């Protein structure tokens, strides 16, 4: 290499170094800003999804029965009466009671659902089938086991039974998907029977509901589907 080329090469290196010194901190700042923006967008989306259901102060306060774990009998549910302003619309009303159920009782030990679980969506079909879509935390954070998973589903089903008479059956989705089990035990492929009584329309906003003290009712109601059979 001639001295002239050496000089040009060294000059080029110095130039690249200077450019890097100027632009790398700028680039780093921009990347940090972009990451922060992405974080905010995810948080914003989450907030929008889980926005508390607007409570209309005009709605009458109803004595609602919510089902959490009993503090006296192991692995059973007990109704707790809570004064809530509830909508007359069954979907809004279902969201209100389920969000209150998810928020948990005063004694955190009596929770039936994980504290980080969210109700993402709730639909009510004309035939009375409710579809409740929960975040993945419902499946991932719940203590694994038949008793704990059954308690979780029963607390949802019985809270709906006690407060929303239009809900006849309940289908549970996790993050918009049908899953085989909640956390390895409880079957979520079917629907759970919630109410068997005929619905009186319009819904009366009388203090909610009757017959809630009977034993566990989350019974799976599977409709016939084509499947391989066993010969008789």
């Amino acid at each position: 290499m001639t001295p002239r080329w050496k000089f040009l090469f060294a000059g080029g290196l110095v130039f690249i170094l200077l450019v890097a010194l100027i632009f790398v901190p700028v680039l780093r700042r921009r990347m940090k800003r972009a990451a922060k923006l992405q974080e905010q967008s995810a948080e914003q989306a989450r907030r929008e999804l889980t926005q508390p259901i607007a409570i209309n102060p005009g709605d009458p306060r109803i004595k609602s029965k919510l089902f959490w774990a009993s503090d006296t009998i192991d692995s059973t549910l007990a109704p707790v009466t809570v004064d809530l302003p509830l909508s007359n619309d069954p979907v809004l009303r279902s969201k209100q009671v389920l969000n209150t159920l998810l928020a948990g009782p005063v004694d955190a030990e009596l929770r039936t659902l994980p504290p980080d679980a969210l109700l993402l969506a709730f639909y009510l079909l004309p035939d009375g089938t409710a579809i409740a879509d929960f975040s993945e935390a419902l499946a991932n954070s719940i203590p694994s086991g038949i008793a704990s998973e059954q308690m979780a589903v029963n607390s949802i089903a019985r809270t709906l039974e006690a407060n929303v008479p239009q809900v006849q059956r309940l289908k549970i989705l996790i993050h918009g998907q049908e899953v085989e089990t909640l956390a390895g035990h409880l079957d979520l492929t079917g629907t759970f029977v919630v109410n068997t009584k005929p619905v009186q329309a319009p819904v009366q906003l009388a203090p909610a509901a009757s017959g809630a003290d009977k034993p566990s009712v989350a019974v799976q109601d599977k409709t016939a589907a084509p499947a391989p059979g066993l010969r008789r």
Partner: protein
Amino acid sequence: MPVQHAGLSVVVIDPSHGGTDPGARGTGGIRESEIVLSFAMELRRALEQQGFQAVQTRQGNEDPSFDDRSATANAQRGAVFVTLHISSTGLPGTVRVYVNSDLAPVADSHGFIPWDRAQAPFLGLSRTFGDFVQGFLAQRFKGSPETAQTASVRQLRTTAAPAIAVEISSVTVEDRADLDRMAPGVADAIARGAAAFRPSYVVPSAAGAQP
């Protein structure tokens, strides 16, 4: 018309979870999938003493699918099915027996039971079997219920035989030895429950047939 005879002779033992699925985990490193396997060995011995043949859905650290586990039971004639679990909640030292929740009745004139509701025709027998086992467990483990509970246990739904889930509380014990000490009592209660149930079970002539 199928010839019927009393003859419960096989108990299919299903140690739940396994492989990459450890099941419930305790803070002391206790894994449900390991404990149920040792309970299964103990149960096998107790059943053989009562004159039953024991078949396991897994012998080691495998994780057969729910359907594969049911298929092991559905391939037997004159079998009952017992799936073993350890809970992560509940009063430690107690044991609960579950039978499947109500399923829509099977009404198929061609003689086939839909796979996804294979348990439906056996629910009454499962309840009888479950109550026998729970009764023996309640005598031995104070605080356990007197009768079997109902739950929508996935593993039971596709099993075409009297089927129960037995869940022992719990992985929250500080020392694994506390659970290990329960194994002989749990195994003996299940084996005695199966023996008490034997006269009630009239086995149809074909495997997997409706009772």
